[in-house]
């Protein structure tokens, strides 16, 4: 129905290689988000699936059929553009009906389909309006309406929410997730906003420089980033990195020494022969605690942001003044230029080798904390 496979997909513009070999399988009904920094090729990849960009080499299959040379409409996809791309001279009704008019569908069925789409998207009262008379959120819904009316098997979204304001974006995120469960369709969604990626995706594809950096569920990416890039990209504020030296390495854990001499045992699967090597320790800002922890770090806060729910301290660490961010409780006793002692736990830390590849962490990947389930049951 809506199954998509990519095999060694490449894209070059002249001598510049933009997509450097993508292999990806997307099952029917999945909500997959392509995420990455500007210029990583995520939009290009989406446009290649859509049929708006030529595929230089490799193969894209939809429902087991090679679609490399097919025009968009024959691929069974539909797409929502960042700029909405509504037809300004047509009413909302005609905008939604456009794909069906192209097909020369019978009037009665066309009308029924448009009504159904507009009901799903709550656009019934707007059908007679022109796009220029609509708000940003409504225009976005019209664009989605035009995509769903043809009932394709794969939906493509190219940063559809980036033109909306923050509140509307949050609403539309929820609506899109609902739509996904209602339509039972495959959705591929491109964004640079990791909140959108984390909240909506069944699976996230992190792209970096035309290559897949990691594919996984949102929590997998958060808890088990495969490399430094993903670790730094997923999470906000981003993960702190400190240079460390490996003291001992075993399958059940690795002990590292920080530059100030403090030692920390991490619950990651070590590899043999790591002793004495320079590694990178990663710790998320939200995993720093005031007091407690396996090791105390001394930071010098430079800027403090108090958000009420939490306090964000932008600090520097050690004699190199490595930037270091900490997310603390709302009332945490932090002050600018007053040394701050924070604890880190070895079980929260990530460890990366010199090539930036992560050591596998020993954490259970469940959405729900088992201890809390037990509490709720009793």
């Amino acid at each position, binding site marked *: 129905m809506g199954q998509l496979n990519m095999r060694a997909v490449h894209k070059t513009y002249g001598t510049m290689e933009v997509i450097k070999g993508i292999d990806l399988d997307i099952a029917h009904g999945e909500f997959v988000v392509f995420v990455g920094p500007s210029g990583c090729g995520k939009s290009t990849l989406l446009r290649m699936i*859509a*049929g*708006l960009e030529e595929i230089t080499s490799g193969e894209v299959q939809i429902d087991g059929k090679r679609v490399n040379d097919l*025009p*968009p*409409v024959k691929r069974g*996809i*539909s*797409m929502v*553009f*960042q*700029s909405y*791309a*509504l*037809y*300004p*001279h*047509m009413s909302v009704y005609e905008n939604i009906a*456009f*794909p069906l008019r*192209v*097909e020369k569908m019978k009037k009665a069925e066309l009308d029924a389909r448009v009504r159904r789409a507009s009901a799903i998207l709550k656009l019934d009262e707007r059908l007679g309006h022109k796009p220029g008379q609509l708000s940003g959120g409504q225009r976005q819904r019209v664009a989605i309406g*035009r995509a769903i009316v*043809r009932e394709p098997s794969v939906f493509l979204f190219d940063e559809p929410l980036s033109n909306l304001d923050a509140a509307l974006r949050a609403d539309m995120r929820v609506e899109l997730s609902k739509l996904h469960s209602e339509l039972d369709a495959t959705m591929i969604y491109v964004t640079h906003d990791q909140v959108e990626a984390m909240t909506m995706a069944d699976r996230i594809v992190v792209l970096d420089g035309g290559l897949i950096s990691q594919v996984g569920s949102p929590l997998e990416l958060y808890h088990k980033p495969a490399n430094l890039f993903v670790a730094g990209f997923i999470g906000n504020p981003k993960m702190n990195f400190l240079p460390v030296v490996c003291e001992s390495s075993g399958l059940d854990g690795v002990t590292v020494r920080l530059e100030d001499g403090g030692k920390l045992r991490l619950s990651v699967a070590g590899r043999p022969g790591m002793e004495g090597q320079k590694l990178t320790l990663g710790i998320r800002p939200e995993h720093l605690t005031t007091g407690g922890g396996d090791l105390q770090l001394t930071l010098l806060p430079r800027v403090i942001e108090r958000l009420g729910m939490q306090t964000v301290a932008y600090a520097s660490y050690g004699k190199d003044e490595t930037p270091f961010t900490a997310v603390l409780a709302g009332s945490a006793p932090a002050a600018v230029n007053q040394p701050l002692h924070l604890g880190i736990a070895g079980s929260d830390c990530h460890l990366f080798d010199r090539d930036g590849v992560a050591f596998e962490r020993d954490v259970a990947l469940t959405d729900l904390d088992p201890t809390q389930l037990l509490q709720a049951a009793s």
Partner: protein
Amino acid sequence: MIDRYRWWEYVLIYLGLGLLLVFVLAPFVEAFLVSLRPLDGLFSIPYRFVTEGMSFDAYFTMWKSVPLLWRYMLNSFFIAAAVTVLGLMAIIPASYAFSRFEFKGRNVMMGCFLAVNMVSGAVLIIPLYKVMQNLGLLNTYFAMIAPGVAFVIPTGIWLLRSYLMKIPPELEEAALVDGAGRLYTLVRVIIPVAMPGIMVVAITTFIAAYAQQFLYALTFNSVNELNPLPVGLYQFFGRQHVVWNELMAASLVGILPVLLLYVFLQKYIVAGLTAGAVKS
């Protein structure tokens, strides 16, 4: 932007504007005054604005002295309209292609179009005459329309191309994803969206066609019934004298269609020429 001028700056600005307007409008005023005067009041020395016996008589007598006048006016209008319609049929698809597709020689061709504009039609009138003669097309409407169309196309393409380039390509991509072909997209999406630009091109083409027809009619046509107004006006040139007042009256009535067109459509011209200049 805030503009604050001192009073004497305003005086200077309006003086300048007034001077320009006098310069541009003086021929029209004189034409109108002449059309009102009796023939013997025309050459009075010293010059007087108001002469004795001014009336609108010329506007009535001209239809009698040149019985086919209405026919010449219709011919003028018909030729200009035909040039506009045929011109647009070539200009719209061509400028769409020039604005969207990458192809070899695109820029060279655009350069050639510009070069064609620099050659006056008068230079080519003799070779064109030979062509028309060989094809047996002399003394037809076609002989006056075809060269007109050829000369308005390059300007039209330049004008419309720059307008089409401002239409976001996402619009076409959306239509492509929705299953529409190139032609369907052009007709259903691009042309409606580009309507203000097309109007500008249509109006400039019409005015250009109205102005240029004199030369083609004079050379390629000798059938009286087919003559456009500028040639028809020669009938007011008698053997002994020129009927100036009726000539001017006929000229003013002749430019009326263009004038009206301009008044009604000028909002499109202003909107079209400035559209997209500032992001709204």
